[in-house]
């Protein structure tokens, strides 16, 4: 049997961290990892943030990002241990045998140079191809990756093409020197879901056609299941499980993997609207000052007490702007909002305190939603003081009650936000909103910045709290899995308009309008062959038209 292309044994990776105001110290972030990758195969590396997956990917190019050091073990590429190689040998490896696709192509392309120049640079530098050959090859790759105008797109500058196109250019850049191995580091994470599916399909096809091997790094199990042959699950720098895609998805062994697979499987049965609508948004149109187009056009939605309306759409659809209009941060140019029978003034400064109290908000980034100089107790205590005039022991008792409700318990009152984990921070923000005893909480992408398992916990907590407090949620998200898990009714937004609106069961069942169909079918599903099915289906449809 021949040697594998990539053979990693006992790989240990360390880093020096510089906590401000303290002495720097060395920590280990990967604690001995072993794996092999055969020629032409794709291995998916999956894990949550801090699992060390990107670090391991870059280690296969003998590269440590920002103070990261490869401290032990061996990494063999084509039979040579690159951790023992000199810098000259490593340079001959990078860009020739192993290449890299980063998460943000926009940052990874030099803004001052044309795309073509950067795509062929490694191939020419490493003597793999002459300039003309490399250019022909690049055009061929552009075509294969489905880029528009493949002959000329290379003459553009990076800022002149869209994000999804640039990500494909980056793939072309990696494939151009005909490497043996490509490291894909979350190549589709920054893209919208409808763009992601095309890029994903393009990458998969390019891998298959060129016969290159790949390490595919992502936090999304459904994505990695589409492109990989094998999957390695990582957690906190250690391997949790390794297996074929089929085995990991359908018969996960480790408890952690099982949790990852069953994530987003919250069963939420849609509630029927009861009573009269609590919030009525009627004919809202809005634009930002200094711009000349409406971000929102004629929006009409209603919400019932104790229920969840999910507003779903991609970036630029206007879903967050809708939240700003309802809260009064952006006065609309037309339309009205009725809350609990009263018409809300469009100007925040003129709203009575009770209107402000009954309408609370939770943000995407819990980090910036809390004043870093205030303790958790102060953060949760302020609305109690401000709206209800609570003081002293009574306030303390209520704060502790709220902390219990969000499952944080004793000892959190005196902590600062910087001392909390991402999930804990978001819980504190929830408690702050609940402290006001609101009737409606606007949740703006509250789980998007969190790892899947943590996000799951937050969703469960929100559903639970809804039962106890009978609060309604306006849930803004781009993630359809979240919508399925939490919504009673759904509004699908596209380019500033609501294109589909109704109870969940109705919105999510056919017949669909074009956009909803595209959106729904683009969400990766955790099953083998899903990507091919969708692509095949779309091809047939467009052929039919």
């Amino acid at each position: 049997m021949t040697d594998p292309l990539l053979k990693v044994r006992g790989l240990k990776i360390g880093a020096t961290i510089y906590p401000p105001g303290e002495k720097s110290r060395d920590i280990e972030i990967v604690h001995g990892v072993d794996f092999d990758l055969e020629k032409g195969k794709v291995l998916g590396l999956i894990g949550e943030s801090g699992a060390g997956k990107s670090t391991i990917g870059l280690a296969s190019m003998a590269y440590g990002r920002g103070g990261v050091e490869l401290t032990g073990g061996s990494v063999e590429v084509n039979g040579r241990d690159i951790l023992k190689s000199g810098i000259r040998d490593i340079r001959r490896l990078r860009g020739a045998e192993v290449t890299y696709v980063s998460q943000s192509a926009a940052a990874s392309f030099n803004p001052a140079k044309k795309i073509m120049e950067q795509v062929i640079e490694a191939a020419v530098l490493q003597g793999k191809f002459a300039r003309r050959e490399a250019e022909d090859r690049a055009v061929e790759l552009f075509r294969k990756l489905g880029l528009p105008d493949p002959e000329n797109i290379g003459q553009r500058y990076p800022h002149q093409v869209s994000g999804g196109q640039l990500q494909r250019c980056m793939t072309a850049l990696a494939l151009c020197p005909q490497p043996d191995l490509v490291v894909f580091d979350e190549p589709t994470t920054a893209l919208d879901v409808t763009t992601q599916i095309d890029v994903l399909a393009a990458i998969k096809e390019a891998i298959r056609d060129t016969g290159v091997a790949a390490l595919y790094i992502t936090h999304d199990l459904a994505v990695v299941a589409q492109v990989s042959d094998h999957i390695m699950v990582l957690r906190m720098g250690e391997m949790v499980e390794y297996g074929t895609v089929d085995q990991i998805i359908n018969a996960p062994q480790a408890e952690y993997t099982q949790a990852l697979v069953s994530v987003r499987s919250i069963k939420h049965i849609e509630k029927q609207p009861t009573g009269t609508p609590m919030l009525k948004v009627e004919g809202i149109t809005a634009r930002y000052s200094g711009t000349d187009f409406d971000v929102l056009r004629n929006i009409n939605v209603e919400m019932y007490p104790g229920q969840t309306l999910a507003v779903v759409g991609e970036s630029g659809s206007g879903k967050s702007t809708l939240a700003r209009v309802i809260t009064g941060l952006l006065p609309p140019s037309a339309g009205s909002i009725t809350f609990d029978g009263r018409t809300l003034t469009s100007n925040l400064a003129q709203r009575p305190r009770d209107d402000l109290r009954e309408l609370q908000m939770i943000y995407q980034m819990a980090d910036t939603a809390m004043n870093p100089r205030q303790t958790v107790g102060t953060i949760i205590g302020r609305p109690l003081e401000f709206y209800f005039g609570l003081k002293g022991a009574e306030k303390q008792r209520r704060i502790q009650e709220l902390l219990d409700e969000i499952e944080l318990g004793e000892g959190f009152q005196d902590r600062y936000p910087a001392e909390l984990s991402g999930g804990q921070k978001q819980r504190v923000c929830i408690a702050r909103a609940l402290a006001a005893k609101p009737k409606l909480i606007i949740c703006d992408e509250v789980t998007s910045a969190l790892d899947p398992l943590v996000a799951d916990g937050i969703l469960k907590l929100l559903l639970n709290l809804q039962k106890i407090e009978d609060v309604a949620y306006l849930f803004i998200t781009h993630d359809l899995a979240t919508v399925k898990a939490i919504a009673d009714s759904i509004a699908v937004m596209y380019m500033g308009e609501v294109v589909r609106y109704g109870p969940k069961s109705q919105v999510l069942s056919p017949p669909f309008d074009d956009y909803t169909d595209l959106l729904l079918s683009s969400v990766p599903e955790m099953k083998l062959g899903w990507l091919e099915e969708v692509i095949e289906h779309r091809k047939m449809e467009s052929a039919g038209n």
Partner: protein
Amino acid sequence: MHPILKLVAQRVALGCLLLFAASVLIFAGTTILPGDVAQQILGQAATPENLANLRAELGLNDPPLTRYFSWLGGVMQGDLGTALTNGRDIAESLGDRLSNTLFLAFWAALISVPLAIFLGLLAVRYKDRWPDKLISGVTLTTISIPEFMIGYILIYWISIRFGWFSSVAIINDSMSLGQKLNAIAIPVMVLTLVVLAHMMRMTRAAILNVMQSAYIETAELKGMPMLKIIRKHAFPNAIAPIVNVVMINLAYLVVGVVVVEVVFAYPGMGQYLVDHVAKRDIPVVQACGLIFAAVYIGLNLVADIVSILANPRLRHPK
């Protein structure tokens, strides 16, 4: 019109507007402020007639707006007025002095700019190692001492103790270039030290900023050697910030010249200005102030325009 030209034209117009506003400010600063100018000029010895005469001579009896526009009108035609103290034409006296000042600033820039960029690169190359620390230590010290004191320290050690170069920098037209350079050697050193620190620190920051970009990592992962990365990827992006740094420091240098000229009794515009501030010769102060402001605004404008021209997003619009 290409959008970038439009942007540049906008900046130039803005610069002109700023200069106009600055002229208003300078004029206002010397006329509208509390305190009677005539009284200030004549001091204790003023008699009522003297005061009245001087007021008439200065045109103080006219409304400020009229005076401003007649002054501005003169400036536009190159007439800067006459000095109160000796009755000479200001534009004439300024001509030579301005060219002397520019001569000094030119040589200081010629030495300090390449040196600062070189040291900035060196500090980046050996970031956090001893050359970097040494350079930042020395620059920290020079930032912490006023220009005139650097001047005297250099005079004391170089000119007096070692007997090299002259401690006064008097030049005139009959001197050869070599003699002139010998005369201004120490002032040039002082100015170099003064701007070097700022320029080098800012250059270092600008280059580090570029070197931390993701596209530098991309180049590294293509197997490119470091020097080639700097030449092909870092340099095209670093040039705008560096030119910016240089321009800002040249503007700073022009101001630094004022003090250094006084220290070395150099016959330039700075000394001319300081002398006449003490004598309360308002027309001279206004003229010099305006010229300094114009140079300062001009250099900052150049810095602005360079950043616009170097920005690929603006140069190649979608």
